[in-house]
């Protein structure tokens, strides 16, 4: 190995690092470390000026390793690595020292200690950098066909976009029919079009596209393989189908939450229904003209929300009532998130009732009315039609009891009027959220993708990678990722198609270099690695372990457990890690 010549670049990150850590001191310290002929500070190493400065320094000083002491490799390592490449270095000859998240941010009140720690972190990075070796990223072929899981509007739209771009798409739907939950809706907000006007053309476009193969009543059995080379198996009827696909679009949708029996008398009194039931009653003409319909928002959503009120601000009777309710409250069942679409849905159904029977009263009990964007117009329209909106407090939920003449009595504390009001109604409609399906857990396991704390599939980054999964080659569309309305679902579906198409159009893909390397001289073929590997990346062939590079995620489980120390992780060799540990101990 040639003599290491390491350049160290310490970032101020404006005041993020520079406001706490004494950056010039760290730079001077770095210069004293062995094999460091060059060190400098940058205001922002990630800015164009900072990057040019790295490239210049590599050329001028004949550097063959680069250490950047700045922020997290999660966001910035790719950038610095490609800068190294531009400077003619293999990108694995780069090492990052995190002195922001792991130093200046957590020690913002201890500048001296933070500076000492930054030096320690830089010393460790330099120690490791000495042992870095160039690595290759082998290319794999990408199969240019996709599987779409779910035949609701999101899955159909994603399939249509990919098929139109020329890719073969296999769409797998577990139900006998396409169209998903949208099909169960009567009308769509805010245009009040029939759902069939939306769904039917989308289904037609998908079914008539020769690039799309549709499998309904199909149950997914197994997904193996990796980005570009997935192997999927499912059962359609009695027939077993096996396919090779390059990418997967996950559009498995969401369920409508069913409240537990007894919640707001649901399941006890038959005049208490969910919005989806009301939707079906209206579509099938099963609702007789009501005198009054009352809707309750946020049933089974936004649970666990505790709003502490300034009790001193309240009238005594109100405060006492609130207290007794809070103390007597049972734990609410349901989901903590806001389901986003229920306010518009309730307004839509209220408008429909008003259009059918102008004399009917419709009251909507809400805690925050979330008619975002131009849906505000929709809210105004309902108010103009004399739909009444009454703000209740979540700690004092409405109480529902049976009343004479097959009516329901609803008692609610109206915050604006400051009094308890009673209504006699013919129907109580509960606005329940979209929620994840129990089957998502199995699906997540099969695809090796995580679910978020809300139970929905989790995106790779909630801001900048909203349709990518953490597993490469798998993309999420529609309500599988959380509550969304139709245009939002379609947008996410098209976005997922855009991301999948990039992989498939490029036909080849560079894979991770950070993989397990088996020394076959040491390997005794015991098979422990094959058993332990969570990604199925090890196979025993001819009495020796073999790594399938594209499957290996470099987690290191095999390397840590190999009884013969026959497995080394590329880019994380024992030598590199030990050098780092030794540097930490050697103050």
């Amino acid at each position: 190995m040639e003599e290491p010549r390491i350049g160290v670049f310490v970032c101020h990150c404006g005041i993020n690092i520079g406001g706490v850590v004494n950056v010039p001191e760290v730079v001077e310290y770095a210069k004293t470390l062995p094999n460091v002929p060059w060190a400098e500070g940058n205001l922002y190493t990630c800015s164009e000026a900072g990057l040019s400065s790295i490239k210049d320094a590599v050329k001028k000083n004949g550097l063959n390793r680069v250490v950047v002491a700045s922020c997290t490799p999660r966001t910035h390592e790719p950038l610095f690595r490609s800068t190294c490449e531009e400077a003619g270095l293999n990108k694995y000859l780069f090492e990052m020292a995190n002195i922001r998240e792991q130093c200046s941010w957590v020690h913002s009140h201890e500048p001296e200690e933070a500076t000492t720690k930054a030096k320690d972190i830089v010393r460790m990075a330099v120690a490791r950098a000495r042992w870095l070796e160039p690595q290759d990223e082998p290319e794999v072929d990408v199969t240019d066909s996709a599987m779409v899981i779910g035949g609701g509007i999101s899955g159909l739209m994603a399939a249509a976009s990919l098929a139109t771009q020329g890719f073969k798409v296999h769409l797998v739907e577990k139900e006998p029919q396409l169209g998903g939950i949208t099909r169960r809706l009567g009308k769509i907000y805010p245009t009040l079009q029939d759902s069939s006007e939306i769904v039917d053309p989308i289904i037609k476009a998908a079914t008539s596209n020769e690039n799309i193969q549709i499998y309904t009543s199909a149950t997914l059995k197994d997904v193996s393989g990796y980005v570009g080379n997935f192997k999927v198996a499912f059962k359609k009827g009695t027939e077993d189908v096996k396919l090779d696909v390059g990418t997967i679009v996950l559009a498995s949708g969401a369920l409508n939450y069913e409240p537990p029996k007894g919640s707001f008398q649901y399941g006890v009194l038959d005049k208490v229904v969910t919005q989806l039931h009301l939707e079906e009653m209206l579509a099938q003409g099963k609702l007789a003209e009501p005198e009054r319909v009352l809707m309750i928002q946020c049933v089974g959503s936004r649970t666990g929300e505790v709003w502490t009120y300034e009790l001193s601000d309240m009238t005594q009777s109100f405060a006492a009532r609130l207290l007794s309710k809070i103390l007597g409250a049972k734990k609410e069942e349901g989901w903590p998130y806001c389901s986003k679409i229920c306010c518009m849905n309730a307004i839509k159904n209220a408008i429909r009732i008003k259009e059918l029977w102008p004399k009917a009263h419709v009251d909507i009990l809400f805690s925050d009315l979330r008619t975002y964007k131009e849906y505000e117009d929709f809210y105004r329209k309902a108010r103009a039609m004399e739909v009444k909106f009454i703000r209740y407090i979540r700690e004092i939920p409405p109480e529902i009891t049976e009343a004479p003449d097959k009516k329901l009595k609803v008692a609610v504390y109206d915050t604006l009027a400051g009094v308890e009001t009673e209504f006699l109604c013919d129907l109580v409609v509960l606005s329940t959220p979209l929620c994840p399906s129990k089957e998502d857990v199995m699906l997540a396991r099969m695809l090796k993708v995580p679910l978020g704390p809300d139970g929905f599939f989790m995106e790779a980054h909630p801001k900048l990678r909203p349709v990518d999964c953490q597993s490469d080659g798998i993309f999420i569309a529609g309500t599988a990722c959380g509550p969304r309305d139709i245009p939002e679902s379609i947008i996410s579906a098209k976005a997922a198609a855009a991301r999948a198409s990039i992989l498939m159009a490029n036909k080849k893909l560079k894979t991770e270099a950070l993989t397990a390397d088996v020394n076959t001289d040491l390997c005794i073929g015991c098979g422990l690695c094959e058993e332990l590997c969570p990604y199925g990346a090890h196979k025993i062939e001819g009495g020796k372990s073999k790594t399938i590079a594209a499957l290996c995620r470099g987690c290191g489980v095999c390397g840590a457990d190999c009884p013969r120390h026959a497995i080394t992780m590329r880019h994380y060799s024992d030598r590199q890690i030990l050098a780092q540990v030794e540097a930490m101990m050697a103050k």
Partner: protein
Amino acid sequence: MEKSALVIGAGIAGIQASLDLANRGVKTYLVEKSPSIGGRMAQLDKTFPTMDCSICILAPKMIECFRHPNIELLTYSEVKEVHGSAGDFTVKVVKKPRYVQADKCVGCGTCADHCPVELPNEFDSGMGIRKAIYLPFPQAVPRVYTVDKDHCLDCGLCKSVCNAQAVDLEQQPVELELHVGGIVVATGFDVYEPLRITSYGYGRYKNVITAMQLERLLSASGPTGGRIMRPSDGRIPRTVAFLQCVGSRDQRFGYPYCSSICCKYAVKDAVLIKEHRPDSEVYIFYIDLRVFGKGFQEFANRAKKEFGVKFVRSSPGEIREDTETKDLTLWYEDTLTRTVKSLKVDLVVLSAALMPRSDSVELARILGIDTDRFGFLVASDSLRHPVDTQVPGIVGCGYCLGPRTGDIPDSVMQAGAAAARLSEILMAGSV
């Protein structure tokens, strides 16, 4: 069929659309009228609900655009004419003179150090200052200085101190003709300046600021280096009140829609203020707290429980200023307890309506597409084809489409959808 595209506007939506197109193999021209790409997201301090540093997650994407072999950046440029149809558009773009030669400027900043003219910096929403020769923000891409000729004294100091000999005060506009198959409009939003809402005193009371101004005060690279100082005396405010729906959801001021993101960023900013100074009191005055979307309700619950942010359901009627101390008193009715109250605070932050860019209607005219009564783009079919305009081959993404849900992930998804739609046209001729 030209396998190329034009993207107008280089905020997060335009950047993502360009990257998705370029990675798909489409030659992409990214036109931005201001000196740097980055847009609104570059101005933000942190992003909700993950509290990622905004510029830190955006900067790698900006640089990716800059380096991408399929992307040609045309900053400080404007689209003047568009002719043709899907698959075959001819676009006239004017590169405005920067008076600095991009290929020579090294971005060292010596010129700005010497420039004698000081002006309010637009990037800091007027809270900070810049020179007449300037870089809008430290992470600007490209890192090329620009002369603001409207305010330049023509003293020539910048030219004389520039070692790279990059300053060229005689530079002329350059007209380019591009041939593209499709167009993405991603021009973003402006923030309403609530001068007409006289009862809140914005513009008269120094300590009444907009949320965008607060973002710049919170930002580490902002004019105060991340310290929240109130404009009247530089004191760190102990009590801060956020007023929601300023201009929006309000027919009197012309923005009856909900801007969709203000409740969420107000909660985030309130938490940031609490993080900066845990003993401060932060109030959010709201009509409906609209924290919908993934993780936001949970985040608002934390703001309340863990950070002690106070939420008041009220739309304050009036703000009065103490002429001596410049402290502010809010008069409001708490609609929960139905009592009229007053609250003395050090700083008021207005969550003002978001509206289309002032030139959105003019751009729509050039493109031959429709806008709504506010100036947002109209989708050809708002339910089924939410990113398509009425002109085939022209699509939109980001806030120029209207408040939609309006936040960063939505803009990123719309960008992907726009790229997919153009790929369908450019790769398969499916108009």
